[in-house]
């Protein structure tokens, strides 16, 4: 392995990164996920941690650009140079740049489909009925966040089953953010166009008209920077149809089966055997995960290795079951030492049933910056390739329980108090204790009148043991128990109408049987993070309701 001159390295372990822009080739969530896993390649074997931030200056700024993109080291169009990164330091140092003239995929060129439906693989069903109307494509109707969605059955009104659509779908064949797709052919400057074009634009962006005559209507939208639809098709514009049957077998993705040249193809009807109709798919592209893991090695201080199988070898090659080469591990541990963390880290649990129905009417009013939106991101990690790890159930059992809950209280300080509580939260300087369905509210060292029943708060006895209380907004506390949570208005000492709600509704991706839930390293109005603990693990969730870390309570939180 090689490091840069003078062993350039970061002087702190808790690094931040920020993705400044995204390639249109992949869904944003897929790119975020690939970058997260690419950093995890290095954090798994060192004490380094990586946290994504969404504004301001991060240690590692990540961007997509083509040709000259502002750093004096121009890219070179498709193929050739794929990306580059700068050694650790201030400013541009540590940053990683990716050539957006490449076709970015996960190396298999088939990712776009994963978001067309839900994480359980249920695909969009067209047409579908929503509020009595028929939709033959994705829509943003009924959602405040403008995300395109679809029903995964023919009748959303009846079944309440839905999934998301890649925002690019609106752009796959081109269109605008109002959902108006490209119209082909269209007339521009008197000429007829049957594909997107850059004509008439100085910035090189590919565009199309969204009516048959741009000259007349001036209506237009943008296109991905590929001529064929991202998921493939033929030059008549017939897109791939999935699944399709070929030689009696069903294919739900492009394949090179049956071709000598290894090119990826698809049928443009559901049955190639009977119809013989087909088209090409974009090439496999370059795995953004593999290239990112390599570039992030540079961002951390590693130079190119001469070991062909090493990640830090300068040439790209697609590796199906990726893992770090000992040469890479020696190099990064030479700079940062070993990690104390466990190997492998536990993944977030896979979803077991459909996401909950869309709330179509507005929940109780809350201060807008505190409102609890419908989950805006795909709740679960996507089907991934190399680099995902899993822990078997047995492994989990073996690790003894941590000691974070129930929470012991110092008897000398408060003679009349119970010794253990289910949950404690502090609101405006007052401590509130919850135990076995009862709650002691108020400033505890003056009142020992004994606990009022939790029913007084409007929480039914069936709630059982509370696993956590989180302050959320001024004078509001979320109380968690089992698969539900309540929102308590502390002033009126009652839970708000419309509760309990299903925890999974908002806090997607965390265990529903967490033993302890708390806000850690932050106040309710600062970017603290929610922690849901179960067994030896904790799931950390950002204020934007994204699980950004799963780890061991003992090592990561208690620093044992």
């Amino acid at each position, binding site marked *: 392995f090689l490091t840069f001159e003078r062993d350039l390295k970061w002087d702190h372990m808790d690094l931040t990164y920020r993705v400044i822009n995204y390639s249109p080739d992949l869904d944003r969530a897929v790119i975020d996920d690939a970058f997260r896993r690419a950093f995890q390649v290095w954090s798994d074997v060192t004490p380094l941690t990586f946290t994504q931030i969404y504004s301001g200056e991060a240690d590692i700024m990540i961007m997509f650009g083509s040709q000259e993109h502002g750093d004096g080291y121009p890219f070179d*169009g498709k193929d*050739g*140079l794929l990306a580059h990164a700068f050694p650790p330091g201030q400013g541009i140092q540590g940053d990683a740049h990716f050539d957006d003239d490449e076709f970015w995929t996960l190396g298999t060129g088939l990712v776009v489909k994963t978001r067309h439906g839900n994480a359980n693989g249920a695909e969009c069903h067209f047409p579908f009925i929503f509020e009595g109307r028929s939709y033959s494509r994705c829509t943003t109707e009924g959602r405040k966040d403008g995300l395109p969605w679809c029903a995964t059955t023919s009748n959303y009104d009846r079944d309440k089953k839905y999934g998301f659509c890649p925002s690019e779908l609106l752009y796959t064949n081109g269109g605008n953010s109002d959902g108006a797709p490209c119209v082909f052919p269209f007339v521009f400057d008197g000429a007829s166009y049957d594909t997107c074009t850059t004509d008439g634009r100085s910035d090189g962006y590919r565009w199309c008209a969204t009516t048959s005559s741009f000259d007349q209507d001036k209506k237009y939208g943008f296109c991905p920077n590929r001529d064929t639809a991202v998921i493939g098709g033929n030059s008549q514009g017939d897109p791939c149809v999935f699944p399709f049957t070929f030689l009696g077998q069903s294919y739900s993705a492009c394949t090179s089966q049956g071709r000598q040249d290894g090119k990826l193809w698809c049928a443009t009807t559901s049955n190639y055997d009977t119809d013989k109709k087909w088209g090409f798919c974009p090439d496999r592209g370059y795995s953004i995960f593999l290239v990112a893991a390599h570039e992030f090695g540079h961002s951390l201080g590693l130079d190119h290795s001469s070991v062909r199988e090493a990640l830090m070898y300068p040439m*790209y090659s697609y590796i199906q079951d990726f893992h770090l080469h000992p040469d890479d591990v020696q190099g990064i541990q030479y700079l940062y030492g070993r990690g104390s963390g466990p190997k492998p880290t536990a993944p977030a649990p896979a979803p077991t049933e459909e996401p909950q129905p869309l709330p179509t009417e507005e929940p109780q009013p809350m201060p807008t910056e505190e409102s609890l939106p419908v989950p805006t991101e795909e709740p679960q990690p996507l089907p991934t390739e190399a680099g995902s790890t899993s822990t078997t159930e047995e492994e989990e059992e073996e690790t003894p329980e941590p000691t974070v809950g129930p929470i012991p209280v110092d008897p000398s300080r408060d003679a009349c108090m119970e010794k253990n509580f289910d949950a404690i939260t502090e609101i405006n300087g007052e401590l509130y204790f919850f135990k076995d369905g009862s709650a002691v509210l108020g400033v505890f060292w003056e009142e020992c009148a004994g606990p009022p029943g939790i029913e007084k708060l409007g929480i039914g006895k069936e709630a059982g043991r509370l696993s956590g209380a989180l302050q959320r907004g001024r004078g509001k506390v979320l109380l968690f128990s089992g698969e539900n949570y309540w929102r308590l208005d502390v002033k009126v000492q009652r839970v708000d109408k419309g509760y309990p709600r299903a925890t999974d509704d908002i806090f997607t991706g965390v265990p529903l049987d967490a033993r302890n839930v708390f806000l850690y390293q932050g106040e309710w109005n600062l970017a603290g993070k929610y922690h849901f603990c179960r067994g030896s693990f904790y799931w950390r969730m950002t204020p934007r309701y994204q699980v950004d870390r799963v780890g061991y309570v003992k090592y990561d939180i208690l620093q044992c």
Partner: protein
Amino acid sequence: FPGDLISTLPDLQLAERYLQRFGYITEAEAKIGGRHMSLGKALLKMQKQLGLEETGELDAATLEAMRAPRCGVPDVGT
């Protein structure tokens, strides 16, 4: 189509550009050294660094490596 341009360059020009871009020939060397002398030495350096057969010649495997997609960070130097 820019990607193709590179591949249609004459091999020697492609090699010179590649060796300079990735640090196997410094700009000063390129200016003052004889073309073939500096190329041979630089080719040997590149073949060693990339685990290719060290022939010092612009052979097929070396040319193929020069056309392969790769990282833009230079292999030698800062």
